[in-house]
């Protein structure tokens, strides 16, 4: 049962990576966006070092923070090196700060 569940997650992970690559190949996203999505996928599905990242990203997506903050978060995410844990931590802190400022943080 556990094994089947594991395989299901692996299939989902590979399917998602495949979809991201196909968006890039169809020019729906650029190279930076493709890398960001793959990095997020890797962090959330494989590395799982920062469960808080998923929560923060989800809350950001469901929030209505101002355009300027949106752009800063996107630019920081795009430039982040996901191999450096301190960069992921600072992204989480930054998103949470913006959400708190806008009164969206729960």
């Amino acid at each position, binding site marked *: 049962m556990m094994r089947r569940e594991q395989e299901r997650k692996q299939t989902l992970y590979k399917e998602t990576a495949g979809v991201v*690559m196909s968006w890039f190949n169809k020019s729906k996203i650029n190279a930076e966006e493709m*890398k960001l999505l793959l990095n997020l996928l890797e962090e959330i599905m494989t590395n799982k070092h920062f469960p808080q990242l998923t929560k923060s990203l989800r809350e950001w997506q469901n929030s209505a923070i101002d355009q300027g903050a949106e752009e800063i978060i996107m630019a920081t995410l795009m430039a982040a090196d996901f191999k450096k844990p301190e960069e992921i931590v600072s992204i989480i802190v930054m998103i949470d700060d913006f959400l708190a400022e806008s009164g969206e943080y729960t």
Partner: protein
Amino acid sequence: MQWSIQDRNKEGILFDLDSERRVLSAMFDSEESCIEAYNALKASDFYSPRHALVFDLLCNLFERETRPTFVEVLKEGHELGMFADPQEIEEIKYIAEQYIDEANIKYWIAKVKEKAKLRYFELFLRKNHQNLMEKNQNELEAEKILLGAEEELTNLTALDIDDFVDTPDSLAKLGYDEVERRFLRYKEIRDKYKGVIPLDGLPTGFDNLNHITLGYKPGDLIILGAQTGHGKTAFALNTAKSIALDAKQPLLYLNTEMSREQIALRWASILTGIEHDRIRLGDIDETKLSIIFNAYSELQDSGFYSYPCPNLTPEKTISLARKFKVQKNIAMMIIDYVGRMDKIDPRLQEWQILEQIVKAQKLLAQNLKIAVLCLVQLNPDGTLQGAKRMKNECDLMLKLSPIPREDLEEDENLKKYLNPNYYIYVEKNRDGLSGVRMPIVFDLQRQTMNDAQSVS
């Protein structure tokens, strides 16, 4: 060497795409599988060019210490301008979905290797057939043609692809190069080092032992025996200090008994000379704390990699050594200690297990071209179980034991040294002098070991 993929007659005989996919898929999923495949296969062992390419990508990531996941392979491929065709991505995805149990990786690797050997054989047949057809009547010397083919076939049938048969020519060249190297070194000793012999291998941490062995060399298996509580770990860490800290050579230290914290604390004593008990208790002042802090920066900049592993098995040591050889280029591995390793087969006697472990470590040292130091426990009477067999396998066998009180009182030779309390006895030395006892000073409290200094 290419065959048409449409040639269905060859599938199953000369290639097995399913096995290739399973090996690659396992490499995506587990580090152990990656280590096994990296060491056993090369890209040309894969029939499918796509599989060979994915294998290369996985190996490149593994060498750079990046876990070769599906996403990492896609990113790596993208950097290299690959995977622009959706069909390619589907193929990689299909490969990655051929799940196998990590425990079966050797089986699938063997299947890939088997087919690769058959393809090399087919190529051999084709090439020789073509050679024969292209020769004219005057060149047809059967004996010469057969001898040439035989040599090539011998290499093909060698057990391992890395096996190398020395020809008279290559052996003579090797012999001359070795003599010339020694001649030049001797000249250098005389002219540049004023008679002090430079080491051939890694420093042992003891001047006398350096002099006798010329250092621990790649491929060497060194065994050090000592009774419980008589300095096995201290010897191991002092060896590590001279190699990983002083000479800055990468070294892997496997410990079966101690925790990470215990190993880290031992270093404080070794590096600063502050009593271990005081460090353990925290009975130090601010000045000593500052000294210890500075000493740890030396460890920080060193090549010391530690892996505490209470359930270490011979298989695991092989796998770890391979990984650290690829990723850190280790020059030595220390196993502290062999007697604590898990049994491969519970029906075997203790000495049989030790013999198996030691044999495996010798092979590992030779294959990876690293020195391996195995620590073993001596019986209370100073003997070693299975000693004769171990002695056969190793290049250097050392015993560490306290100097008996009567020796200290009566041996005139020992009186020439300042406070010696332990002997390092060289029981076997493949490349030099053996049967030698070297007096050393082992400071149990400070965990340090040094050559006993002469009374000047």
